[in-house]
């Protein structure tokens, strides 16, 4: 749990923050503060929040509250931590070579990776794209398996 970053628990808060972030990348982390991978991820986020503060905003969403389950279902979040990027209320996709482009699953290895991803999203969004290529080299992308209807 990082004290620098805002934690959102209610649906109105999430709605408000998505609506009110204008011309900045909105980074929403869905996860639990007790999970150690989440903690690692949160630390990276907290360290870089000041560096990207001019073009990005970071917020944490606690996945254990009931109101948030709507979003968990909507975005199909099963693994924690999952990070979802928005720009001007549009959901931005990230092609990192994994199966799921709609979110980033897992923690970042280094702070620079996170900053690079946010910058790539910003540049793509300013050009009008909805999906961007991930600049992180594949060895630093966390790998995961997706189960589709238990297949």
């Amino acid at each position, binding site marked *: 749990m990082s004290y620098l970053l805002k934690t959102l628990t209610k649906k109105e808060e999430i709605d408000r923050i998505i609506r009110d972030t204008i011309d900045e990348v909105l980074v929403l982390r869905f996860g639990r503060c007790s999970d150690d991978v989440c903690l690692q991820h949160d630390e990276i986020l907290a360290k870089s929040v*000041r*560096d*990207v*503060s*001019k*073009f990005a905003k970071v917020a944490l969403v606690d996945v254990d509250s009931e109101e948030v389950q709507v979003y968990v279902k909507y975005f199909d979040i099963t693994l924690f931590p999952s990070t979802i990027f928005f720009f001007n209320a549009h959901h931005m996709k990230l092609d990192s070579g994994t199966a799921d482009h709609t979110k980033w699953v897992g923690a970042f290895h280094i702070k620079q990776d996170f*900053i690079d991803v946010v*910058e790539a999203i*910003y*540049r793509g969004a*300013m050009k009008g794209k909805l999906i961007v290529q991930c600049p992180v080299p594949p060895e630093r992308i966390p790998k995961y398996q997706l189960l589709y209807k238990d297949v």
Partner: protein
Amino acid sequence: MATLEDSFLADLDELSDNEAELDENNGDVGKEEEDVDMDMADLETLNYDDLDSVSKLQKSQRYTDIMQKVEEALRKDLDGSDKGTVLEDDPEYKLIVECNQLSVDIENEIVIVHNFIKDKYKLKFQELESLVNHPIDYACVVKRIGNETDLTLVDLADLLPSAIIMVISVTASTTKGTALPEDVLQKVLEACDRALDLDSSRKKVLEFVESKMGSIAPNLSAIVGSAVAAKLMGTAGGLSALAKMPACNVQVLGLKRKNLAGFSSATSQSRVGFLEQTEIFQSTPPGLRARASRLVAAKSTLAARVDATRGDPTGTSGKAFREEIRKKIEKWQEPPPARQPKPLPVPDSEPKKRRGGRRLRKMKERYAVTDMRKLANRMAFGTPEESSLGDGLGEGYGMLGQAGSNRLRVSSVPSKLKINAKVAKKLKERQYAGGATTSGLTSSLAFTPVQGIELCNPQQALGLGSGTQSTYFSESGTFSKLKKI
């Protein structure tokens, strides 16, 4: 000067007349002026070897009046509660003003006596005046030494620092002065005593003024302290005079300019006078002293103005000023705020700055189009272009090597390209025909095959034929492209 004339006239007439006239309270100031002039006149007579018994009398009579009053006031410890509306009407204030004047006059007097002593003592020990600058110190030293030749018998340890004592003893052993005659010695010693007496009375006067400073100018003394306040008032010539001065003048009141002839004044930088002796100034670190002196001068001028108009008899505004000064000096000394890391700039918000400069220009020169290339790119109208291999093959020369251009020569550099057989043969022919540096066995005549004079034409030896033969219909020409099927 009119007063000097008057004093001379008074000398001639009768001194007692003047005494009777000016024997009033308010005439004390006048008396003191008179005293100074009398002393000056006396000293002029002193210079002519006339004893100053007359001036001694003067001194004891007139000026002890003021001294008596001062001592009385010191003992009585007046409080002076009924100040009245205007400061200037207060009798005690008047005494203070007179004391201020007196202290300035005494200082001038001391300088005069010092000059006198120097003049007389030159015969004995000339260098002493340049070694010991301060008049009172000089007088004490002269008194101690007297007519003594051997300085080891004289103890100067309590008067001067030991370094200077050493220098004095060394100089004394090599001085070319002689012992003084008895009467001159007497005069000198009396003059020394006079100087010391003047100094002690000046100290007494200052002490008195200091003790009264708290009631005269409470705000000013709250900031700079009563001693310095008294000195400032004395030099300025009264509280209202001090209040009228701008702060920059107050800052340099009391500055002793000791520009010894021949020495540079570039290093003597402190432009602070009496304010140098204040507690505030002494306690600031040396780097901030210039700013602090300006600040203290400004605030003390404001306090003096408050005091001159009696705006705040309690002295609270003076204390407030002092507090303000202290806070400001503290603020100057605190370290700058720690730097926080800057956030990254928004991507693509700043256009790329194209830098210029000598380095970039030098780098661009390596890839720039050279003059030679520029000439080769241009062509003359109407004349066919020369080319490296002739007949339009190879690289065109353009305007290069034309008769008009007298700068560049065409030099054939073998290119790194792969050339086919026909082109290679042509190149070789060219080389033999036009090259300036060829093998030493060929004579120059062979280079002009058109003339027809050929001693030994290396081209024929190689089977190249004369240069004028066309390649297309050449006898020696072979198939250019032979490919194995």
